[in-house]
C-alpha cells in the first residue's frame, strides 16, 4: 500500500510523519504547480472552489508516481468541503482510477467507531499505543513547523539581504522529502530554525503589521495565494494568519467533537456582525479581523477562493468592520484565472497606503 494525501501548505510535514510513524509507505505529492492546477481544472466541475481542483491535481500526480491509497480529511460544516471526498471519489472513478482507495478521516460527530474503523483500515493495526504515539508526534511536528513559519513572518521583513531566509526555508522543504520519520524531520526543522535565527537584521527597517484572514486553504497554501506571505514579507510587512494548521487540527479533530473550542473568544468578537455558524470560517474571518484591529495591526487582507460562500458573506460584512475599527481592508479572490500582475498591483498599493497612514499617525 502506497499512501498519498492532498497538499495544504505545511500540512504535508505532519501527515508525512503521522503516516510514516505507523509504518506506511508514503508518497508526498509533488509541490503544487501550474500543472497540478491544470490537471485539477480539467477534471473538476467548473464552478467548484479552487481547493478541490488542486486536490484532484495532487491525487493524479501522486497516482502517477505509484500511490494507490488516498487519505482525506472530512468536515461537518455546511461548506462544500464536507462533500469533497465523495466528489473526489467520483471524479477519480470517472478518470479510470477505480483501484485507488480513498480513506476518509471524518471528524467523529459522536460516532467514534467510524473514525476508529477508518484508522484501523489505514494503519492495519489495532494497537492504540502505536496510533496515539504517531498522532502525538505528528501534532508535535506541526507545531514545530508552524513555529518556524512564525519566525519566517518575523524575519522576512527584517532580514538585511532580502530573500536569505527563504533560501534556508526552501532548502528545508526539499530535504524533508528525502528523510523518514519524526526524528529526522524534527531535526531538520530545528537546524533550519537555528540558521534562520542567525540571519542578520536591518534595525532601521520600518515594519508594518498585517493580519491575513480568509479561507483556510487559500491562506495556507502558497501556490494558491500567489506566494502572498513572501511578497508581503519582502515589501516590509510582518503578517499573522488567522488560521493555522496545528490549531485547526486540534480544534477540528479533537476539541470540536467534545464541544470545547479555543475559538470561542474570536466568535464572541464576530457576534455583533454574524450571530451564527454559516459554514467554513466566516466567523473566524470576521472575528480575527476585529481581533487584529484591536491589537493595533496596520491592515487586514482577506483571501478566498472564487465562489466560496462563507467568505462572500464575510466579505460583505468586512467594510463595516473596516469603518468601525478604522483599519484598512483589502480583499483578494483567487482561482485558476488569477493574474499575478494584478495581484501584485493591489498588494503594492495596499502596502503603500498602510505606510503612508502610519507616517501620518506618527508625525
Amino acid at each position: 500500500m502506497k499512501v498519498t494525501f492532498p497538499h495544504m501548505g505545511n500540512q504535508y510535514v505532519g501527515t508525512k510523519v503521522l503516516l510514516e510513524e505507523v509504518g506506511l509507505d508514503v508518497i508526498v505529492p509533488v509541490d503544487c504547480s501550474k500543472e497540478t492546477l491544470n490537471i485539477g481544472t480539467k477534471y473538476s466541475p467548473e464552478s467548484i472552489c479552487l481547493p478541490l481542483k488542486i486536490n484532484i491535481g495532487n491525487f493524479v500526480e501522486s497516482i502517477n508516481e505509484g500511490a494507490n491509497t488516498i487519505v482525506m480529511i472530512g468536515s461537518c460544516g455546511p461548506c462544500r468541503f464536507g462533500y469533497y471526498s465523495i466528489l473526489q471519489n467520483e471524479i477519480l472513478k470517472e478518470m479510470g482510477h477505480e483501484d485507488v482507495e480513498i480513506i476518509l478521516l471524518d471528524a467523529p460527530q459522536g460516532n467514534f467507531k467510524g473514525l476508529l474503523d477508518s484508522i484501523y483500515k489505514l494503519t492495519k493495526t489495532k494497537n492504540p499505543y502505536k496510533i496515539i504515539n504517531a498522532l502525538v508526534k505528528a501534532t508535535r511536528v506541526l507545531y514545530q513547523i508552524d513555529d518556524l513559519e512564525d519566525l519566517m513572518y518575523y524575519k522576512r521583513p527584517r532580514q538585511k539581504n532580502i530573500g536569505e531566509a527563504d533560501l534556508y526555508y526552501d532548502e528545508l522543504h526539499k530535504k524533508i522529502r528525502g528523510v523518514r520519520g519524526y526524528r529526522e524531520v524534527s531535526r531538520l526543522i530545528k537546524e533550519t530554525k537555528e540558521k534562520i535565527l542567525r540571519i542578520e537584521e536591518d534595525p532601521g527597517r520600518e515594519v508594518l503589521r498585517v493580519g491575513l484572514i480568509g479561507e483556510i486553504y487559500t491562506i495556507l497554501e502558497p501556490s494558491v495565494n500567489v506566494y502572498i506571505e513572501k511578497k508581503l514579507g519582502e515589501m516590509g510587512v510582518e503578517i499573522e494568519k488567522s488560521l493555522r494548521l496545528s490549531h485547526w487540527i486540534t480544534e477540528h479533530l479533537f476539541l470540536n467533537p467534545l464541544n470545547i473550542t479555543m475559538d470561542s473568544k474570536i466568535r464572541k468578537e464576530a457576534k455583533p456582525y454574524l450571530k451564527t455558524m454559516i459554514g467554513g470560517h466566516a466567523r473566524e474571518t470576521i472575528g480575527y479581523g476585529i481581533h487584529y484591529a484591536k491589537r493595533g495591526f496596520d491592515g487586514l487582507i482577506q483571501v478566498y477562493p472564487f465562489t466560496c460562500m462563507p467568505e462572500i458573506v464575510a466579505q460583505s460584512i468586512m467594510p463595516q468592520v473596516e469603518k468601525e475599527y478604522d483599519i484598512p481592508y483589502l480583499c483578494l479572490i483567487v482561482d485558476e484565472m488569477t493574474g499575478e500582475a494584478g495581484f501584485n498591483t493591489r498588494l503594492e498599493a495596499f502596502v503603500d497606503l498602510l505606510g503612508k497612514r502610519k507616517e501620518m499617525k506618527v508625525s
Partner: protein
Amino acid sequence: MKNCYLGIDVGSVSTNVVLMDDNNNIMGKVYTKTQGKPIDAIQRGMKEIKTAIKEEIKVKGVGTTGSGRQLAAMIVGADVVKNEITAHGIAALNFVDGVRTILEIGGQDSKIILLKNNVISDFAMNTVCAAGTGSFLDRQASRLDIAIQDFGKMALLSKNPVRIAGRCAVFAESDMIHKQQLGHNQEDIIKGLCDALVRNFLNNLGKGKEIVGPIVFQGGVAANVGIKQSFEEALGQEVLVPPHHDVMGAIGCCLLAREHAAKGHLTEFKGFDIINSGYNVKGIECQDCANLCEVIEIVQDGQIMARWGDKCGKWNSLVKKKEKLA
C-alpha cells in the same frame, strides 16, 4: 539645459509617455496603443517624445507604472517603479488639491481611490473580472458603426434612456442587441449603456464607500462625456475631468521621479538611445522543479539584461552575479 522628468505608464491597452519640467508643466505627451507589444510601444513613445522636444533637456528622473512597469523599468532604467493606484492618486492631487475621490477607468482595470487630507485612505480595483470597460466601449462603438470619439456625445442627445443589464459585459451586449431589435434609437441605447456601466462601477467598486467631492474622473474612458454625465447623475455631484486625463498614470510617475530626484538620488536613465536598440524577450520553462516557472529573459542587442518570473530566484540571481563579475 532644462531639467525634466520622464513618466511611462505601460498598460495592457495603451502605453503613455510624459515629459514634465521642474514646474510641473507637461512638455510632451504620447498616448499610443500597446497592441500586445509593450517594448515596441515604449520605444515608439520615447521616439515621439524625443522628436517633439526641440530644446536641450536633461532627464533627472524616470518613473514607470502600469502592468508592464517592471519591463519598462528594465528597458529605460527607471528610478521609481510604482503601482497604478499610487501613481494615479499623486497625479490627481497635483491637479485638484484636496481631491477626495478618484474614479479611474482604463482599458482593462477600473479603480476607485479615496483620499483624506491629501493621502490615499482607501482604494478598490475590480477583483474577479477584468472589467475592460474601455475595450468594451470600443467594441460597442464599432459594432454600432460610430466613431469612439462621438460615442459619448450621442449619449447626451438621449431623451428616453433604456435600461440595460450591466452586471457583466456579456450580459450588457446581449441585452443591448435585444433592445436594438425592439426598435429603440441609438442615442437612448448608448445612454442606457453608459448608465449601466456607471451603475456597475459604483456597485462593484464603490460598495460601502462614502463618495465625497471633489471627484476626479480619469483614465482613457474619461474622454467619454456620456459616462461622465452618467456619473454626475448617479452621484448627484459635479465630476471633474483633468485636461490630461488619459495620461495621469504617467504624470504621477513624473511627479514621483521628481520627488525621488529632489532627495538627491541620481538617475539610472539609459538615455534616449535605447530607441535604437533591438530588444528580444525569450520565455523559457525552467525544468528544475515541479513549479515549471516561466522565466522571462530580456535580451538587448544580444546581451541578457534581466530575467524574472522564477519563484525560487535562481535565474534572477544568475544575472546579478554576472553583473558583479563584469
